[in-house]
């Protein structure tokens, strides 16, 4: 979707203003810690995947997305998913009080403290096999399709319609566009190199290139 999260090339957002690395805390408020932890923990209930989770944050009004701090966007996404998946009701969320018991099937999946290290160390690999042969190989010229899906996608707007060169084939990975709808398929994934001038025009500073990871479905041959 062409949402408020798709920021590459947007103007007017101000300077970066980094905090000094040596003194920057991991969190700037206690509630940020809790939002991070609740988001990670509830993910293990198995009711959504990382793409559904990203899409929930992206589906906010763009003005909200841009106004919010990072963990506010996580909180907004988490509340949305909990209600949409029927894990809590809108009324429970509003009152903070449980009006019924949780589904026993969910209770069996609750992440316990002793399982945290092993669960985090395991991660969730995104590789997924496909019968399809990769359509492209390193050195091939490709154009990113001019497409504007209403759902989740990982093809940023700033590269759509532009020509790049396949830098590397990464194998086949879960396609986020379908995964955000709960449907897992493996699709070939490539690192694609775009020259700055191709994306930003002749005024772009020279000797700059952008490498973007793009799935086979996003690409067409360029000639």
């Amino acid at each position, binding site marked *: 979707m062409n949402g408020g999260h798709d*920021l590459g090339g947007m103007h007017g957002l101000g*300077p*970066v203003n980094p905090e000094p690395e040596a003194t920057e805390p991991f969190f700037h408020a206690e509630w940020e810690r809790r939002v991070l932890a609740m988001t990670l923990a509830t993910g293990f209930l198995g009711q959504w995947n*990382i793409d559904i989770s990203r899409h929930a944050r992206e589906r906010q009004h763009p003005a909200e997305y841009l106004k919010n701090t990072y963990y506010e966007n996580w909180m907004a996404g988490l509340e949305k998913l909990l209600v949409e998946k029927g894990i809590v009701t809108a009324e429970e969320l509003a009152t903070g009080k449980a009006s019924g018991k949780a589904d026993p099937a969910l209770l069996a999946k609750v*992440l316990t403290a002793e399982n945290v290290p092993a669960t985090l160390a395991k*991660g969730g*690999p995104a590789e997924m096999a496909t019968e399809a042969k990769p359509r492209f190989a390193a050195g091939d010229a490709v154009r990113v399709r001019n497409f504007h899906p209403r759902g989740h996608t990982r093809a940023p707007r700033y590269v759509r319609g532009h020509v790049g060169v396949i830098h590397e084939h990464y194998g086949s990975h879960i396609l986020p566009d379908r995964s955000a709808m709960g449907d897992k398929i493996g699709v070939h994934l490539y690192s694609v190199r775009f020259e700055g001038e191709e994306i930003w025009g002749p005024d772009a500073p020279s*000797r*700059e290139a952008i490498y973007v*990871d793009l799935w086979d479905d996003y690409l067409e041959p360029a000639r």
Partner: protein
Amino acid sequence: MAHDHHDHDHEHTEPPHDLALRVKALESLLVEKQLVDPAALDALIETYETKVGPRNGAKVVAKAWSDPDFMEHLRRDATDAIANLGYTGRQGEHMVAVENTPDTHNVVVCTLCSCYPWTVLGLPPVWYKSAPYRSRVVMDPRGVLAEFGTELPDEKAVRVWDSTSEIRYLVIPERPEGTDGWTEEQLESLVTRNSMIGVEPAKSPNAANEAAE
């Protein structure tokens, strides 16, 4: 939903303590329904505040600088090379190392969200997740690097890596001059988080000495 109502009451100036209350209310609801274990939440926070962070990445870089076989392994299969040092798991399942050289500088971003190699760098800093960095570094990398005090010569090529998939990028900064004969442990002290994102070079031995004094 509750927070929509809330927003209407307060326009665009939601006081942070109200947000803190909303988060607290959600946690007590989830705990009451036994959907989260508060001890697991504490363990998750402790992991990313005290265990998993950029010192992991610094060990990877220091080894890459010291051990040509390890550097070759990183080039061939960074996920496997890094796993051999014990760093595996969430947000580090598929790693690629990109090397800075005298001719080329690499810098990493996620324009669509905040993808970041947690296993080697921990949680991302605020600026990495912020709209200014995400919008601008793909369009004006030299300008953004200058805001970190990093001035690149015109003849040096810049590669920006936009993390749009589950591949996670780790920048291997250039080994600083004047570190011949340094041990891996000494070298580690020169490797900053920002140098592994690619917005700054690694510390020079002189700068590291001054900081220590």
